[in-house]
């Protein structure tokens, strides 16, 4: 990958332009790292606060006014609201999969059509997550389709 750094004019806002043939996993990772930087999430499990790298989060789920983040094996509670996560991680690998779930696109192994326009995403940890009909275009957009 070629990296070109150009100096911008005084007063001009710094910007990063990515020119690629297609938005593949590598580019998504670069964008995600740029966007997320060193940002960490705080997860609570059994009263213990743990710092979680957002790249390790499979999905966020809102259940009974609580938000949980699901990693490969562990589940943590987070004090962030789903809409805050959605805002914070827009333009990263995360996308809204349903009203209660925000999913990491890099953790999806495959998808299959489910009931009535919904899709079911099989994740790399073996879990299955439903993608609502109205959020399928968002997934396609994330994948550059």
């Amino acid at each position, binding site marked *: 990958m070629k990296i070109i750094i150009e100096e911008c004019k005084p007063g001009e806002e710094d910007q990063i332009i990515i020119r690629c043939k297609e938005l*593949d*996993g*590598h580019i*998504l*990772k670069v964008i995600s790292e740029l966007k997320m930087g060193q940002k960490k999430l705080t997860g609570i499990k059994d009263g213990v606060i743990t710092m979680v790298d957002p790249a390790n989060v499979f999905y966020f789920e809102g259940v009974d006014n609580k938000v949980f983040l699901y990693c490969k094996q562990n589940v943590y509670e987070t004090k962030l609201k789903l809409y805050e996560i959605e805002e914070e991680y827009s333009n990263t690998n995360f996308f809204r999969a*349903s*009203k*209660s779930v925000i999913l990491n696109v*890099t953790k*999806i*192994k*495959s*998808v*299959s*059509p489910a*009931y*009535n*326009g919904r*899709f079911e995403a099989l994740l790399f940890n073996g879990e299955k997550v439903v993608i*609502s*009909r*109205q959020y*399928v*275009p968002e*997934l*396609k957009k994330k*994948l*550059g*389709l």
Partner: protein
Amino acid sequence: MAWLKNIIVTFSYVLAGSVICAMVFIALFWPESEEKLTILWEVVVLSIFGSVGNLIFYSRHEMSKKKMKVRTVIHYIYIYAAVLSCAHLFGWIVPGNIRQLIVMIIMISCVTLSVGYAVKKKEARTAELINRKLSRMNLRKDENEENENKDRI
């Protein structure tokens, strides 16, 4: 606006199916008739009724599989009721003519199944497209991880 797009897509499918069915039905039961343009408008009205039935599936809250199944049954009942009411209103079937009624029910089933099949096919194509992209993406991710590991060594 996804719901509107969905209704428009369904409308086009139902319209195509209804036109074919109307042609078959006229050829079977009204071969001598010289239908005017009104039949086309009647078919359009019927297709609108058929497609707005999709609103049954919309909800502000996430629906369970069971709720979806219940709504599917309601949707089928709605489709049959709407089409048979239109057929009666537009005078396509003579009241008391069981043969016409049976053929009409068969045709509704054919259009419903065809639309269902077309939608399923479209969903399968979408899933295939997404999976292809995902596997390319994951392959690239694996290669990068492999390279990173090599660099570390």
